[in-house]
């Protein structure tokens, strides 16, 4: 026989306060749960208001800022993981290379790759997204190199130097990043070090 009920769960309202206070003043409440019978009703009330006012847990950080550092060169840039959702296991990624002379594709590639490893292997995320301006070709190419898909294209979406530019939305799922890590070493002896060498070679060719 199926078990049926019309009960449901909801957030408490202010109208519920008297009921909850009465429950918490009951000896059984102190016995089976917690509380101090010596507490004044006012203290109990204030405590309950605080408890009921809390939303669903925000104990996990909503954003993580990571510094890209180098023993030889010092701090290079900043990786920011924003809008981390522990429910959806997702975040958006921003990266800034502060040392302008290091704004090469190699440094950016390494930083993005490491940030993605951190997202998937340490934070156990499922999806990493990034919004990249269309004119920032190097960045979105590297993101694509890591397996990300261009999911969104928003025309004339950001104003820079008096002109509206397109913005791309990229998304990388954990399985796609894993696939890149699995497939590329088999395909071309690929590793992070190989990727760095390849990109450095490409840069040398294009600058030469």
């Amino acid at each position, binding site marked *: 026989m199926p078990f049926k009920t019309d009960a449901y769960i*909801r*957030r408490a309202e202010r109208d519920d306060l008297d009921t909850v206070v009465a429950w918490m003043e009951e000896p059984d409440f102190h016995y089976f749960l917690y509380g101090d019978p010596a507490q004044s009703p006012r203290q109990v009330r204030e405590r309950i208001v605080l408890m009921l006012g809390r939303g669903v847990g925000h104990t996990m950080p909503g954003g993580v800022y990571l510094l890209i550092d180098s023993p030889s060169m010092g701090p290079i840039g900043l990786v920011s993981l924003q*809008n981390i959702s522990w*429910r*959806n296991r997702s975040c958006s990624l921003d990266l800034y290379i502060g040392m302008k002379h290091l704004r090469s594709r190699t440094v950016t590639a390494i930083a993005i790759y490491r940030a993605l490893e951190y997202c998937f292997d340490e934070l156990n995320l499922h*999806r990493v997204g990034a919004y990249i301006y269309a004119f920032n070709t190097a960045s979105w190419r590297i993101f694509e190199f890591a397996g990300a*898909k261009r*999911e*969104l294209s928003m025309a004339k979406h950001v*104003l820079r130097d008096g002109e509206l530019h397109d913005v791309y939305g990229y998304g990388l799922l954990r399985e796609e990043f894993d696939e890149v890590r699995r497939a590329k070493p088999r395909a071309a002896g690929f590793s992070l070090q190989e990727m760095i060498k390849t990109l450095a070679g490409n840069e040398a060719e294009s600058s030469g």
Partner: protein
Amino acid sequence: MIVSEHTLIRTADPDDADFLLEVYRAERPKAALLDGRREPVLPSRDELAEMLASKDAGRNQFFAVEDTAGRVCGFCGLRGVSIEAVFCEVMVLLIDPADHAGPIGRETVQFLLDRAFGRMHLEKVLGTCLDSEPELRALLADSGFVSGGIQRQVLYSGGAWHDIETMARLRPAPGQGG
């Protein structure tokens, strides 16, 4: 308030909190009700009433949609206005999904487009919908919105991943209807 043939649209006020709570309690998730992390939020009636009473509600342009019988059948609004890039996002929150396909849905979107293009002089309007909102997607498509793409697996709800689609409509050229 704006009176059309099938709707009356007016700024939402604290007395509408119960109806807005009904929208939040809908069985299927709605893109317009997700927060910045694309998570559903569960506000209480008191919080909604406070939100509707705040000055921000007026600034954010949040409206109640009534049918001809005076029943609140949904809400709509404009948010995320970018002064720089002259665009904003539309929110269409109709309680009965079937209303999206009828005159209530059409008049609601037309009201928002008139505000965005005619009153605020914006150049572009965006709309988002989850794959669980096919009625809203159809309404936006019928209203001239074009898909900008689908972001995959952004929301986990009801034991499954959901995609979110972003649609855009540009300002009509001079002389063309809205």
